[in-house]
C-alpha cells in the first residue's frame, strides 16, 4: 500500500513531530486504559479491589478470580456455547451467502439485481423492531431456549451483508478462466466450487471474520432467546454477574478478560483482513 508522506518531504519542525507522537500516545493510553484496568482488577486479591484511592499497579497478583470464574460458575459452559454458536452461524451464513452471491454475480436473470438490493435493504431493519415478534415466533415453534434459534437469527441477520460483500469480490475476479472452463464443459456450479471459491478464499475469510466478531459480541439475541444456563452465551452470562446481588468486581473483570482475549488475539493476528473486510463493507454498503 502506497501512502503519502507529508512528514519527511515537508521537513516539519521538531515540535510538530513531538506533538504528533504525543497525541497518538495519549489516544493509545485512552484506548488501552479501560482494558488495562479490567485486567489489573481481575488480578488483584479480593481485599485490594475495593480501595479508594484506586491502586493502579497491583501489590500482589493472584489468579484466584479466574479460578473462581472458571471452576465455580457456569462460565465454561457459556464459553463453549459461544464458540459453538459462533462457528456454526458463521459457516452456515457464509455457505448460504456464498452460493447466493455467485448466482447474483454470474448467473444474472431478470430482476436479479433488484432482488439483491431488496435483500441488502433487510439488513437495515433495526433489530429492536424484530425482537418481540421473533421471540413469540420462537416460543410458538418450540425453538426458544435452543442453539438453533440463535444460529438462525445470527445467520439471517448477517447473510444480506455477507452476500453483498461476496458478490463484490466475485464481480472483481477475472472472468477468463471461468469462460475457458465453461468451454471445456464445466457447469456453473462446478465453476463455483473448483475455480471461484479457491481463488476468493482470502476475501471470504475476511468477511466471515467480521460476522464472527458480530456473533461473538452480540448480546441482544443471546439474552432474549435463551434463558437456560446450559444454552447461555458469554455476553448475557457476563451481564448476569452484574444484575445479581452484590457485584464481585474481581470475578466480573476476570470473566470479561477471558471473553476478550480470544477476540483480541484474533484481531492482532488478522488485523489486515478485518480492516479490508470493513472498508469493503463501508464503500459498498
Amino acid at each position, binding site marked *: 500500500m*502506497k501512502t503519502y508522506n507529508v512528514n519527511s518531504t515537508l521537513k516539519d519542525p521538531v515540535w510538530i513531530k513531538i506533538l504528533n507522537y504525543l497525541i497518538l500516545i495519549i489516544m493509545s493510553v485512552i484506548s488501552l486504559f479501560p482494558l488495562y484496568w479490567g485486567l489489573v482488577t481481575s488480578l488483584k486479591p479480593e481485599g485490594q479491589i475495593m480501595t479508594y484511592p484506586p491502586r493502579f499497579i497491583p501489590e500482589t497478583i493472584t489468579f484466584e478470580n479466574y479460578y473462581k470464574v472458571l471452576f465455580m460458575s457456569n462460565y465454561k459452559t457459556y464459553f463453549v456455547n459461544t464458540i459453538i454458536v459462533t462457528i456454526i452461524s458463521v459457516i452456515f451464513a457464509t455457505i448460504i451467502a456464498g452460493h447466493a452471491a455467485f448466482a447474483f454475480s454470474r448467473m444474472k436473470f431478470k430482476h436479479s439485481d433488484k432482488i439483491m438490493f431488496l435483500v441488502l435493504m433487510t439488513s437495515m431493519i433495526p433489530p429492536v423492531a424484530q425482537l*418481540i415478534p421473533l421471540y413469540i415466533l420462537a416460543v410458538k415453534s418450540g425453538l426458544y431456549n435452543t442453539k438453533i434459534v440463535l444460529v438462525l437469527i445470527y445467520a439471517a441477520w448477517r447473510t444480506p451483508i455477507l452476500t453483498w460483500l461476496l458478490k463484490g469480490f466475485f464481480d472483481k475476479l477475472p472472468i477468463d478462466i471461468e469462460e475457458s472452463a465453461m468451454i471445456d464443459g464445466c457447469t456453473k456450479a462446478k465453476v463455483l466450487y473448483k475455480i471461484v471459491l479457491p481463488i476468493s478464499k482470502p476475501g471470504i475469510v475476511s468477511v466471515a471474520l467480521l460476522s464472527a466478531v458480530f456473533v461473538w459480541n452480540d448480546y441482544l439475541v443471546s439474552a432474549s432467546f435463551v434463558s437456560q444456563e446450559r444454552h447461555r452465551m458469554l455476553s448475557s452470562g457476563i451481564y448476569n454477574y452484574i444484575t445479581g446481588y452484590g457485584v464481585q468486581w474481581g470475578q466480573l473483570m476476570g470473566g470479561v478478560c477471558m471473553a476478550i482475549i480470544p477476540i483480541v488475539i484474533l484481531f492482532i493476528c488478522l488485523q489486515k483482513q478485518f480492516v479490508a473486510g470493513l472498508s469493503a463493507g463501508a464503500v459498498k454498503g
Partner: protein
Amino acid sequence: MSTLQGTNFVSSKKRKRYDFYTSILFITPLLILIAAITIVPIFTALRWSLYETSYAKMIKFVGFKNYISIFSPKQGGEVLISIFNSLWYVICSLIIVMPLGICLAVFLNQDLRMRGLFRTVIIMPWVISQTITAMLFRWLYNGNFGVLTYLCEKLLGIQLDFLSNIWPARISLVLANVWNTLPIVIILMLAALQSISIDIYEAAKIDGSSRINTFFRITLPLLKPTIGVTLVMQSMEYFNMVTLINNLTGGGPFKATQTLSIYAYRQGFEFWHVGLSSAISVVILLLNVVFSLIYIRLLTHESN
C-alpha cells in the same frame, strides 16, 4: 466465444435452463431465511401495533390508538423525552467521533515510527463488544471505587457519582460510546485516505501549501463522500443502539438515558406492552427508512 459455444456444447439452450435452475437453487435458501427471520417479524410488528394486546395475545383492533397514546402527554410524554435522549446521544456522539476520527486517521496515515503499533492499539476497542464496554465503564464510573470518579475528584475537585445523576450519566454514556465506536470511523477514514493519490500532495507541496491548508483544501474535500456515508451509517448505528445503553445505564437514572430504541425494548421485554412496543418499533423503522434513503442517495451519488 459465441462461435465456440455451438460446437462444444451439446445444447446451449438446455444448458442455459440448467444454469437457471442452479441459480434459483443457490438463491432460495437465502430468501427463505430472510423471509422467515426478518420479513415476517416486521409485518407481525406492524399488525400488532394496531391492536390492543395483553402479553402475546391480541385483544382487539384499535387502529392507531397505540400510536396516539405513545405521543400523548398522558404517557408522561415519554416518547418525546426518548426522542430528545436519542437526538442528544446521536448528535453528541457524532460531534466527538467524526472530527476526532478524521484527525486521528490523518495522523495515523503519516510516515511515523511504530505506525503499525499505534494503529493496532488505537483501533483495538473496535473488537470489544458493547456488553463488555458497558462492564468496563461501569467499573471505571463506579461511584465508590471507580478510577474516573477518583480522577474527577483529584483534578476537578468534584465528588460525583457519574451514573446516578442525570447530566453526568448522559455525558458518561456518550463517552463510553465514543471509546467503543471511534475505531470504526478511523478505519473508514484511513481506507479513504489511502486511496488518495500521492501526486496531489506532491503538487500541493511544490506549490508551497502549508499543512493546515493542505488538510482543508485537499484532504477534507476528497474525504467528503466517505464522511457523508460514515455520518449516516453511524447515526443509524447510534440511533438503533440498545446493548451498550441497556447494560451501562439501563436507561436510567430517571429515564435520562432512555433513547427511543431502549424505550421500545423495555416496553416489550420488561413490561410486555407488545402493542405499544410494536408501535414504537414502527416509528423507529420509519426513521430508519429515511436514513437508509439518504444513505443510498449518498452511495449512488458517490459511484456516479
